[in-house]
């Protein structure tokens, strides 16, 4: 009994000693790696060292004869050396691995160079001067997604020498942070500026959309982030417009949110109130948007706008034909006259009827021609992304005899068959229209026009439809985009007005275009199946049997 008891203690001590040995060496090795890795003896490194020394002490105390045997006995020394050298090798491998992980040397083997930043992205990144951070929220379930995404984020970090950094947060572990960021789904990615103290500036937080073209999404988000905060656009609400937060079919909450999402500050202003108090449009306004105002501007309001424009302001005017007294931009009204005199563009009291190209009725005007040389229309290919205006207003552009320093141009144009119905009363009451020679305006007609003062930098875009970006027009109830051109027209107008385009000067890259599909005949398919499933394995098997038979006869 005594013997077995003492034997079991010996075994226990030996196990303990062995454990101490392994832990001790591992601790010291990890400590060394940690030291090399961090470059300075931090708390963790010291703790690991202490742990390692503790382990070695445990080894010495638990099995003293083995410990001394290490210095004299062959077998113990061999055993210990085997463990030590193995751990050491693992340590070296781990160190090399971590160094290479940090160096992030990669080689993109794909034909479509899927893992290489495009020149456009590199141009954007070359202008980056302040630190930014990509913050990804991934739970452990989205780990593979995170790995894939990380390969992209890493490219940005490498390309900017760390100016763009990466941070990953597990929304399950830190729900409070996830809530603060407004995380909506696992794997969501955000972008934000980094303050001098290294913390994320939550005020500059922007969501990165998750689409098929990851590089484009990230680069666009970075480009926007670079100008974010510097650009502010104001939606006027003082002339009877619907508020930007109106989520009904007629509201414009969708584009308002879209502007915000793109990194531009979006606010509201009340022109009537500012004019009444003799104030000015805020000087930080990169652009002021008048989305379907109901009444025309008063003299003092015009003065306010004029001062803003003289200071290089930008206006986006969305106007409808209104069947009321003193409607916005009435052809003979003071504001319209002001625009025509000073900027060479103005609205006409005529509804566009285009029998040549329209949707359900000739009043649903589809963009027939686009002046692609203007920045606004660059992406508005009528064949791919036409615009649709329901009851459009014709606009007037002075292409010659413009005021000094003013440049003007058309953006969207109707067909030759179009005409401008001027009998608004009849149209409004009976919904009838027809071309009256000499009375109605002959086509083709302009529906969107721009103007700029090259000296002051003032810019205007006049769009002859007030509700083309209303919630009901650009998206259906289930969120699908209906008329892509309308959204592009709005966005690119804002981009042009705010000079955002000079910040984001890159074309979205085309991905997944490259590889052709497989087309084979049934005979070919059968042949392939025969070769791969029957011929190849059988051939290998036969060779094997042949070789074996020949040899075994010896």
């Amino acid at each position: 009994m005594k013997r077995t008891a003492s034997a079991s203690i010996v075994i226990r001590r030996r196990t303990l000693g062995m454990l101490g040995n392994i832990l001790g060496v591992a601790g010291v090795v990890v400590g060394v790696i940690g030291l090399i890795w961090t470059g300075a003896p931090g708390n963790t490194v010291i703790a690991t060292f202490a742990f390692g020394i503790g382990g070695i002490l445990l080894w010495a105390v638990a099995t003293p004869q083995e410990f001394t045997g290490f210095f004299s006995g062959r077998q113990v020394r061999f055993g210990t050396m085997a463990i030590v050298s193995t751990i050491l090798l693992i340590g070296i491998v781990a160190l090399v691995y971590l160094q290479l992980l940090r160096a992030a040397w990669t080689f993109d083997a794909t034909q479509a160079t899927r893992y290489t930043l495009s020149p456009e992205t590199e141009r954007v990144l070359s202008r980056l001067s302040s630190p930014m951070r990509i913050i990804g929220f991934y739970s452990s379930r989205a780990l593979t997604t995170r790995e894939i995404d990380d390969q992209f984020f890493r490219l940005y970090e490498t390309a900017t020498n760390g100016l763009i950094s990466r941070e990953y947060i597990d929304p399950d572990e830190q729900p409070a942070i996830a809530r603060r960021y407004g995380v909506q789904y696992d794997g969501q990615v955000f972008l934000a500026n980094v303050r001098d103290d290294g913390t994320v500036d939550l005020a500059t937080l922007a969501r990165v959309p998750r689409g098929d073209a990851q590089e484009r999404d990230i680069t666009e988000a970075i480009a926007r982030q670079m100008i974010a905060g510097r650009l502010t656009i104001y939606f006027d609400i003082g002339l009877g417009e619907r508020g930007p937060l109106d989520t009904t079919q007629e509201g414009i909450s969708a584009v308002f949110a879209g502007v915000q999402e793109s990194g531009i500050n979006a606010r509201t202003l009340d022109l009537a109130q500012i004019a009444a108090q003799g104030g000015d449009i805020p000087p930080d306004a990169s652009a002021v948007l008048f989305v379907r105002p109901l009444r025309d501007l008063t003299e003092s309001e015009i003065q306010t706008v004029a001062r803003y424009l003289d200071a290089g302001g930008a206006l986006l005017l969305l106007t409808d034909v209104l069947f009321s007294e003193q409607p916005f931009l009435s052809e003979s009204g003071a504001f319209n006259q002001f625009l025509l005199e000073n900027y060479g563009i103005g609205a006409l009291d005529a509804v566009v009827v285009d029998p040549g190209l329209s949707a359900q009725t000739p009043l649903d005007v589809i963009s027939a021609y686009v002046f692609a040389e203007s920045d606004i229309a660059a992406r508005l290919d009528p064949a791919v992304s036409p615009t649709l205006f329901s009851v459009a207003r014709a606009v007037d552009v002075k292409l010659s005899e413009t005021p000094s320093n003013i440049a003007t141009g058309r953006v969207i144009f109707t067909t030759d068959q179009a005409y401008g119905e001027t009998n608004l009363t009849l149209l409004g009451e009976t919904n009838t229209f027809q071309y009256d020679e000499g009375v109605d305006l002959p086509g083709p007609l302009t529906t969107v026009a721009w103007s700029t003062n090259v000296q002051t930098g003032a810019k205007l875009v006049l769009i002859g439809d007030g509700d083309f970006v209303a919630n009901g027009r650009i998206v259906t109830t289930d969120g699908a985009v209906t008329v892509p051109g309308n959204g592009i027209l709005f966005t690119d107008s804002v981009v042009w007005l705010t000079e955002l385009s000079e910040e984001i000067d890159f074309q979205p890259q085309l991905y997944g275009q490259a590889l052709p599909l497989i087309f084979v005949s049934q005979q070919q398919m059968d042949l392939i199946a025969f070769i791969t499933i029957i011929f190849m394995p059988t051939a290998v098997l036969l060779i094997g049997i042949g070789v074996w038979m020949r040899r075994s006869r010896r």
Partner: protein
Amino acid sequence: MTDAMIEVTRLTKRFGDRIAVDHISFSAKPGEVVGLLGPNGAGKTTTMRVLTGFLPPSEGGAKIAGHDVVTDSLNARRNVGYLPERVPVYPDMTVREYVLFWARLRGRRDARARADAVIAQVNLSERRDTLIRNLSKGMRQRLGFAQALAHDPPVLILDEPTIGIDPRQVIEVRDTVRELGRTKTVLFSTHILSEADHVCDRVVILHQGRIVAQGKPSDLKRKLRPDATLEEVFLSIIGTERGAGK
């Protein structure tokens, strides 16, 4: 004693608590055939395994052609040809491939010529392209010799080479050993005393891990009585050991 080809000094080998070989010392000169005698479990195989570098000694040491088996193991191994008790073979190789492999592995540059020479030496030339799986037991034993000689080592260690083969082949093996003993140092283990008597210049008698006697077979016999056989010598030694032990 520096010219000894095999030099064993206070060699001890423990397996856990069991002592297999207990502080044994002996040596063998060039051209000497030394028999390692003893009953099963006396420590013969263990001693040989230490000498061939297969097992590391627990204490003490051994030198082969002046190379320590622990500190200069690779050089020691280069000078030993080893035939374990059961001839180790690759059944799917031919005789020639097999001998060639060992000749190459042990560093012979002229491996092809050497392999053919060795195969001829053990009378397997006609079967050189036969698969080993198709060889008879006696042929395999000869192949074992060929393998041990493949690199032409100065020291040969043969572990019970006569076990399990028919008497005619036993004589053949004994002749071979004697023949080899002319040019090489041979350490040869057996538990059959008459065999050692026939073949060996000197014998080392092991019992329970210790050397109980060593010397020329004739001297050992003379000590007891002139016409004694080695069996009688052995039994008398073990007998006194037992008596002394108790």
